[in-house]
């Protein structure tokens, strides 16, 4: 099935097709890696919306990438519960292991490192999401192993 066909199938499950914008954008992002102008146009055409509308919606939500990102996404929760138990040390360990600052992508385009607002694993902090799969709790000393697993993946 083409992306447009998949989107139309999702849209059929809602009373109004515009409700399918978020799932459609997610699907387009999965296929394109980020929400490029082409990806936005495909979503817009499939749902009979404008690319500008799709961009205005996508830019509201943190999980949509309006710029290219690495093949893997490492997100470290730094909200208060995780921060109280050492999230900053975990984040700095990732910075040093990956050789990037928070918000950046490694030079080989493999890994993007981000700080994340409360991931909802507060009792098991620090929460780290690797490609949206949670690891909890993560301590700074666990980071080298996680990074080497990422390089092998």
């Amino acid at each position, binding site marked *: 099935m083409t992306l447009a066909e998949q989107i139309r199938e999702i849209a059929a499950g809602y009373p*109004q097709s515009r409700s399918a914008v978020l799932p459609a954008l997610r699907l387009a992002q999965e296929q394109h890696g980020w929400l490029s102008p082409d990806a936005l146009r495909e979503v817009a055409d499939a749902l009979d919306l404008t690319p500008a509308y799709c961009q205005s919606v996508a830019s509201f*939500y943190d999980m949509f990438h309006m710029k290219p990102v690495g093949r893997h996404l490492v997100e470290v929760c730094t909200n208060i519960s995780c921060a109280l138990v050492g999230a*900053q040390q975990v984040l700095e360990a990732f910075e040093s292991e990956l050789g990037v600052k928070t918000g950046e992508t490694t030079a080989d385009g493999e890994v993007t490192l981000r700080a994340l607002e409360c991931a909802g694993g507060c*009792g098991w902090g620090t929460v780290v999401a690797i490609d949206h799969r949670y690891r909890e709790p993560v301590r700074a000393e666990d980071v080298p192993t996680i990074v080497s697993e990422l390089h092998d993946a």
Partner: protein
Amino acid sequence: MPELALVLEGADDRDLTKLGEYRGVGGYRALDKARGMEPEAVVEELLTSNLRGRGGAFFPMGRKASFIPKPEDVPKPRYVVVNADESEPGTFKDREIMFRVPHRLIEGCLITAHSIRSQNVFIYIRGEYLAEFEVVRAALDEARDEGLFAGVTVVLHRGAGAYICGEESALLESLEGKRGQPRSRPPYPAVSGLYAAPTLINNVETVSTVPKVIELGGAEYAKIGAPPNSTGTRLFSLSGNVARGGNYELELGTSLNDLIFEIGGGIPEGRKLKAVIPGGSSVPVLTADEVDTPLEHDAMTERGSMLGSGAVIVIDDRCCMVQLGLRVAQFYMHESCGKCTPCREGTRWMVQLLHKIEDGRAEHEELDLLLSVCDRILGKCLCPLGDAAAMPIASYVSKFRDEFRVHIDGGGCPFGGEASLEGVMAPVDQHTHHPVAEVPA
């Protein structure tokens, strides 16, 4: 022990993600019972139980359901929406419910749909909750294949990363395929909600409690906990500087002290308790002296705080309250949707002022300015996000004013770089493309 599993009942012994196992503990019997009742009788049981919203607003679910107009009065579809967009900092209970007892949530959805004669249920699940999405999706498929839906459609809809979409009207906007910005009310969702039709919207934990209310009957349920206002149990999410963090389902009215020190094992490394946030980062803080407060609505209100989402964040004596305020304010600044000026600008000003205080660049008047910014946000926006930023910050200043003063008098943070939240990177620091308005002189 005050631990009492109603929502999580059976989940310690069996894999209740499987339909057969869930039936083995009496699952879906409440649905049969409810479907044998008139919808109005189901709502009556909810009213009698005084089951209050577990998302944070504590509004009685039965009253909300009773506001839904009858089909003969409003000839439109009636929608049930489940708020599974759990994102209040400190809160991770809905996640555990979805992961461990998804069928109890689904049973609650189907009973709720029957209670307002609805044929359409939407579960709006937080986008980050991928594993939980997969578990609920599998449980929905199982229940659908067993013919439990009886004509009702259930759509599992994923969010995409926006705290504000936990606010009910923003959630509805998002579900309609728009930016998640709150609506002005009235009209309330019961009158004009999803697609401008009558909509009953409730939190995951609330809906997952409904089968137990029907099983026991409202009157029996209302005897549990701390009646009349705080009936039943809640899942408390315990986190921060505490030995055994996690979710604990307790009868309402359990003492905060017991949760932290008996159940949670106290503060690690021989540290001292400094403060507790009893209901998620949006609520006013309690000092160590107030830790005897029962976990129930009236007692918390008397102490000037709230049970909120049931997220208890424990803070030990290594924490600088200015840094805590800064990190909390940075969160709300990041998550403000930008629609209402007091919230959009006020949260930025709060961050700037707290930075100045932490760095020792502030004058004493700026502490008053900070409180005045809080005051000018409170109650002046379309939704409670601005309040959620202003209330905690104002409480940190009022309860720890000396600590704020020491920063100003001493020209910097008295913790000298050793505080637990020192230098923590907030996601808002990653976004440099937004023009930032300066605090007026």
